[in-house]
């Protein structure tokens, strides 16, 4: 922020709107304002009052309007209104008032403001103080308040310096949760000066789980107007879509300062020998991804095959853990078959420890089904008991259940297509600022597998380097699916771990959900930044939204798309903000037609 402290972050001067009502008590928490003729206060407006306190001096009390009221003073009965307004026979004064919740007292002497004191609309430095923006070390403008001025988020509470993670709630269909998440990511990436060294290599991982809404982040939107552009510039960011940077894609070199995006999708099933990304909306710029059996074993991905909450209730995790260890111990590369493995005891590897020639009749593992079969050789021998080194002594029923689930998961339609030998097609999270993984066409089991595998990869990298920077951001919609309030799963455990430790490791989560009450409390409570769009009426009354004022909660049922409530540790009251439309398309039909391009270009192979 270049503005000098005296002018405040947002400039402007405060104007008088009324006086504090002296009927009834004012308190250090709240007071009411009777408005001057020709002045008004709307809900969410910010005010400041100066009170002279004996022995302390001038006290500034800041507050936010939580309710606006009007009445006929002099009317004793409700039917008086007819006599007052219809013919005007009964004299009465229209009185407009506003209820104020105190946000801050400066200096911090919690004394009630005096009745009769003049109340000013807070502008300029006063507004910043009301919102604690003057105390934010790195204020990131994340939208506009009701007065049109920027609302700031203290970046220290997102990037792990003082706090981390963001939780976004709201009913579905209003489509603001994801949009806001990307709006925020775009602001983060667009404010390198603010983010500092972390900005350069900021990496964001996001999963597209519904439709193909996130596959147009590099395409301009036809709904984006000049007003929106102006609003973006007021927030200090030049609005552009993300620049395409999918490996292998035919894209121009991105301009400096424009964050990049890479799209990844699993391979299509039944595509013959070709590996094509499983998306329907766009024909280019999406890279297919798979893991080789080698990677599957090395990265211990087997655990993410068993992510169903019911898996945790029996002994399957014990068997899985043992099997995972055995695979790591025995897997060895096959010469001439990249990515494929065979299972051999370490003392049985002629030609070296790293890679061997496959023997005749030896099972070469090239797919997940091969993995299942190889494990089956030990756990489901044609004769005799399961190999105790693999079964961990589990009962036969458990071993059978393990195998049954593993085989079911291995089919091509489920996880099978994600694991194949050949050249490595792992997702390169370093290829672009934003990595979008399109898993909407995958079976739910496979979706959890991909999410788990990539989150673990991210988290592990950070654990190994121990470096907080560069920041890694995970955007996860429908968080309640991955970290439900009830039950256990490896995914949930990892998310809780990220929520608790990710902050210090620079792994930050932006979680979105319809019902915060259905998300594991450990995950929610660790989110320093809370954002809410329109809420279901019942949901808004839950304890998860205790950070909102009662008036804000009531209004959260009525919020329009593009309006959010922001809660952050640096500001003790929730602030309502609106954010502009985004410059990229959020649906296929929003993609701005490019007149220069050949409309049939995509149809020609």
């Amino acid at each position: 922020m270049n503005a000098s402290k005296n002018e405040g972050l947002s400039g402007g001067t405060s104007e008088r709107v009324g006086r504090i009502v002296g009927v009834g008590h004012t308190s250090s928490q709240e007071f009411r304002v009777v408005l001057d003729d020709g002045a008004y206060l709307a809900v969410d407006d910010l005010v400041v009052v100066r009170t002279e306190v004996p022995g302390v001096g001038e006290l500034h009390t800041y507050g936010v309007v939580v309710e606006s009221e009007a009445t006929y003073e002099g009317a004793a009965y409700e039917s008086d209104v007819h006599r007052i307004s219809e013919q005007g026979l009964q004299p009465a004064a229209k009185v407009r008032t506003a209820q104020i919740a105190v946000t801050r007292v400066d200096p911090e002497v919690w004394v009630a403001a005096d009745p009769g004191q003049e109340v000013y609309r807070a502008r300029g430095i006063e507004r910043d103080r009301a919102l604690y923006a003057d105390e934010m070390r790195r204020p990131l403008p994340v939208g506009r308040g009701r007065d049109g001025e920027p609302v700031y988020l203290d970046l220290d509470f997102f990037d792990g310096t003082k706090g981390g993670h963001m939780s976004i709630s709201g009913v579905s269909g209003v489509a603001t949760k994801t949009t806001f998440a990307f709006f925020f990511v775009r602001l983060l990436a667009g404010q390198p000066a603010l983010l500092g060294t972390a900005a350069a290599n900021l990496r964001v991982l996001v999963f597209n789980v519904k439709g193909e809404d996130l596959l147009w982040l590099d395409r301009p939107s036809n709904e984006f107007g000049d007003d929106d552009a102006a609003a973006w510039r007021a927030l200090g960011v030049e609005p552009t879509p993300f620049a395409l940077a999918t490996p292998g894609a035919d894209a121009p070199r991105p301009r400096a300062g424009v964050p990049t995006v890479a799209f990844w999708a699993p391979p299509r099933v039944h595509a013959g020998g070709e590996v094509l990304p499983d998306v329907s909306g766009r024909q280019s710029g999406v890279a297919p991804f798979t893991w080789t059996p080698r990677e599957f074993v090395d990265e211990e991905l087997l655990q993410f095959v068993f992510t169903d909450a019911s898996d945790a209730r029996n002994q399957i995790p014990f068997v899985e853990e043992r099997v995972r260890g055995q695979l790591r111990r025995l897997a060895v590369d096959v010469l001439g078959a990249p990515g494929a493995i065979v299972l051999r005891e370490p003392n049985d590897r002629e030609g070296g420890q790293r890679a061997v020639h496959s023997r005749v009749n030896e099972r070469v593992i090239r797919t997940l089904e091969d993995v299942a079969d190889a494990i089956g050789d030990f756990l489901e021998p044609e004769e005799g008991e399961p190999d105790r080194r693999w079964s961990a002594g589990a009962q036969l029923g458990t071993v059978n259940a393990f195998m049954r689930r593993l085989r079911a998961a291995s089919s091509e339609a489920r996880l099978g297509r994600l694991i194949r030998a050949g050249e490595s097609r792992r997702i390169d999270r370093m290829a672009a600022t934003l990595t979008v993984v399109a898993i909407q066409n995958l079976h739910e089991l496979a979706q959890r597998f991909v999410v788990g595998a990539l989150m673990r990869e991210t988290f592990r990298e950070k654990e190994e380097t121990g470096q907080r920077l560069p920041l890694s951001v995970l955007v996860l919609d429908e968080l309640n699916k991955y970290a439900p309030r009830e039950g256990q799963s490896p995914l949930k455990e990892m998310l809780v771990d990220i929520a608790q430790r990710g902050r210090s490791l620079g792994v930050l989560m932006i979680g979105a959900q319809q019902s915060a009450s259905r998300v594991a409390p450990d995950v929610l409570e660790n989110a320093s930044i809370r954002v809410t769009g329109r809420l279901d009426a019942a949901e808004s009354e839950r304890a998860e939204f205790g950070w909102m004022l009662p008036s804000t909660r009531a209004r959260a049922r009525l919020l329009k798309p593009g309006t959010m409530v922001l809660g952050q540790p640096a500001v003790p009251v929730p602030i309502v903000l609106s954010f502009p439309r985004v410059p990229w398309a959020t649906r296929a039909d929003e993609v701005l037609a490019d007149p220069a391009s050949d409309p049939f270009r995509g149809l020609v192979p």
Partner: protein
Amino acid sequence: MARLYVEDWSPEYGAPFESDTDSLPSEVIVDTQVETRGAWEPLPGRDDGVRRVAFVDGVQRIEATLTLDDPERGPLPGLCAAYAVGASVWDRDARASTFDHVRVGRLAIFGGGESPSMPAVPGMDYAVESVEGLDVAALRSTLDTRRGRAETDLVRRLAEDDCFVIADGRVDDLGPNDAVGYIKSHHRTYLTGSEARTIGTLRAGERTPMFLIPGKFERYSWYVRLMDIPGGHSWSGIARVEAPAAVGIVRARVLADRTAALLPLAAMPLHLDHRAPQNLVPIAALEKELRRWLGDDGLVRRALRAALNGVPA
């Protein structure tokens, strides 16, 4: 040297009271033939579209009973009183009413012809008055007179300011203005026989023909029905209105027609007030406002005690 004290106890403390301005000599012969010759019939009201109607009223209150401790003459009675007069002005074009010309007066009235100097009471300005007698009724009648004068002044001012004035209660000296006195209670009837029976046949918005009340302040008067009250007796919903004879019979008739049309609009709904419908909506609101202007009774008394008895407030 004589000293002033506020008495600690008095039954009238703070109680607002209305003085009865409708007391009349027992025998008044009225002339029922000034407007209509022969038998009376109800006459319909007529709204001539007057733009501004001002309802004028006053309230008064005894604030403290005083004792003047005179070393030679013994204790002499006195009282502190306050009155407020004002208007509720109905702008019919704007369809809005506003309180206007509200004035508060404070009097320290002493008996026995004494007029001691009144110590300063913060925030209140007492004008000292004295009466010859020693009885409290005489003191109170001074208050009535002062308030009445303030009301009369206000009526004239508003009339000169192009308002049609409806003053609550009887006002003796309305002058030759578009001003009427509005009397809501009927201590006696001025009419007898068939004329009196006409009152029972009035419908809402109708009036009786005018009759002339002789006296020092000669005036025309008529009865108006404000509201048809199902199950009411023949006088329920009836009010009496007076206009100064000085305006002349032609102008008086315009005023009479006007009140018959307008007053029912201002009538108080029955369920809202025990003096309904005669206690008109604007006047009820005005009274409430005027009492508010008198200030908090307890605070006034405390300030008086502090100033006169030397007791800290």
